[in-house]
């Protein structure tokens, strides 16, 4: 049985946050569609081929990328592999426990993975070395260092930045053997830069980039992943309450504007 630790939110905190949001304000002074301050650093891990650290307010995630040569999946013999894993470190929050990954960790990894994979960040076909035998496998690891809400947006932003930062050694085929050239590096073949926006529904209103306090009291949450041209590549809904059509369409509209602003951090 998996028991997720539920933090009990004091009734008065719930009420004060909800009332502020109904008035179009937020506890930390932001407006409903404002992100917290974002800091993005790349290339911070020397031993990894690509890395990034992203801070969104007090939320902090470190991302590392390691490539490896492996066999492709049987149904896609000419395509490289991108794998995302996440780790919620116990030091990040009192509700994170050591041990096998829990629901939240699996969700974070899967949603990030879907956004990157369906968003076609990397042209995976170019990572094929010998069709059906050897391809590059890209392992992307998310380490949550500090948790103050909205892990998904930070994870996707950081992952894309880390992928853009990655340089892998070049591999050649000589006499049916793979020779890795550790002198010449190549950048990963980038196709798109999808990004994600998460909204929380509190008191019937939508707020972007929910903080931990807001996440604890939200009725529902929706995350939307979007490519640069405005097409949607991933969507994830959480929480107990439903969204109306209008709310989702409104969220998509804000996402196309906000992913544009977030994309500036990648440059």
């Amino acid at each position, binding site marked *: 049985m998996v028991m997720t630790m539920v933090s*009990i*939110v*004091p*009734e*008065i*905190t*719930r*009420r*004060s946050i909800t009332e502020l949001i109904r008035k179009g304000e937020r506890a930390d*002074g932001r407006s409903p569609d404002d992100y917290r301050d974002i800091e993005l650093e790349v290339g911070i891990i020397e031993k990894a081929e690509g890395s990034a650290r992203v801070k969104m307010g007090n939320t902090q995630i470190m991302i590392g990328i390691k490539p490896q040569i492996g066999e492709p999946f049987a149904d896609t013999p000419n395509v490289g592999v991108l794998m995302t894993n996440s780790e919620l470190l116990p030091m990040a929050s009192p509700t994170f426990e050591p041990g096998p990954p829990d629901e939240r960790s699996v969700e974070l990894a899967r949603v990030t993975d879907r956004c990157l994979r369906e968003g076609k960040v990397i042209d995976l076909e170019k990572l094929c070395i010998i069709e059906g035998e050897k391809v590059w496998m890209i392992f992307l690891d998310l380490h949550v260092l500090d948790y103050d809400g909205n892990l998904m947006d930070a994870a996707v932003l950081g992952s894309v930045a880390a992928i853009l930062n990655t340089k892998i050694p070049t591999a050649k085929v000589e006499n049916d053997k793979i020779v890795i050239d550790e002198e010449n590096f190549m950048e990963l073949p980038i196709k798109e830069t999808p990004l994600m926006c998460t909204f929380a529904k509190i008191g019937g209103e939508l707020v972007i980039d929910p903080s931990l306090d807001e996440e604890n009291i939200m009725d529902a949450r929706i995350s939307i992943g979007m490519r640069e041209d405005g097409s949607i590549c991933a969507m994830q809904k959480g929480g107990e309450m439903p969204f109306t059509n209008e709310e989702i369409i409104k969220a998509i509209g804000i996402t196309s504007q906000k992913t544009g602003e977030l994309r500036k951090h990648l440059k």
Partner: protein
Amino acid sequence: MIFVEDKNLVVPGDVLADDEYHTGRGTFKEGNKICSSLVGLVAVRDKKISVIPLQSKYIPKRGDVVIGEITDIRFSMWNLDINSPYSGFLPASDVFGKEKRDLSKAFDVGDVLFLRVVDVDEVKKVKLGLKGRGLGKFRGGILIYITPTKVPRLIGKKGSMINMIKDETKCDIIVGQNGVVWVKGKPEMERIAERVINMIEDQAHTSGLTDRVRNMLYELLGKEIEDEEEVPEPDIEEG
């Protein structure tokens, strides 16, 4: 012989003094030297040397007044989170006397109470009580969490700091010894009080704090008054 000055920042293992001084809180003796066991500021009082930690968790002490949140209802008591590694309990008899009643009708999960620590036993079971002036359930307002060592600084000498914030923002403010602060007033004043309290927590170890707090309050309120110039401010009743 002393190797540090009052209010110096030290880390665990720093040698503070030799054995002509007495060990206080946050220190230990290694041979004939007194060392720090914490990250914090040195406090020298006569011949007693102690270290006040920069950050701490609340350790319950009998007689403290604390702010707690109800996390669970049991057969004859409420369980409360008192912002501490140890949780507290409030016996139903303390509220109902000998009468038997449904506990959730008095206080429910998520309610916030102002309580007194009645007793702490050897295994740190914390018994809480509601007997006393001003103790009971909070209605409305916001909660702010600060590190418990900063509580004396927030209150100030004879309440000078906290009274200044109360007077300027016209908010009701109650500070629990466990680092939970309850503020109730006009919503925009609550936000100002929150910012000021967070600033005090940030800079509690520096001197001249009261003046900076006053300046910050005037600055924040000055803006407020300019904004509301056309509307005469209604009288706010205390309590």
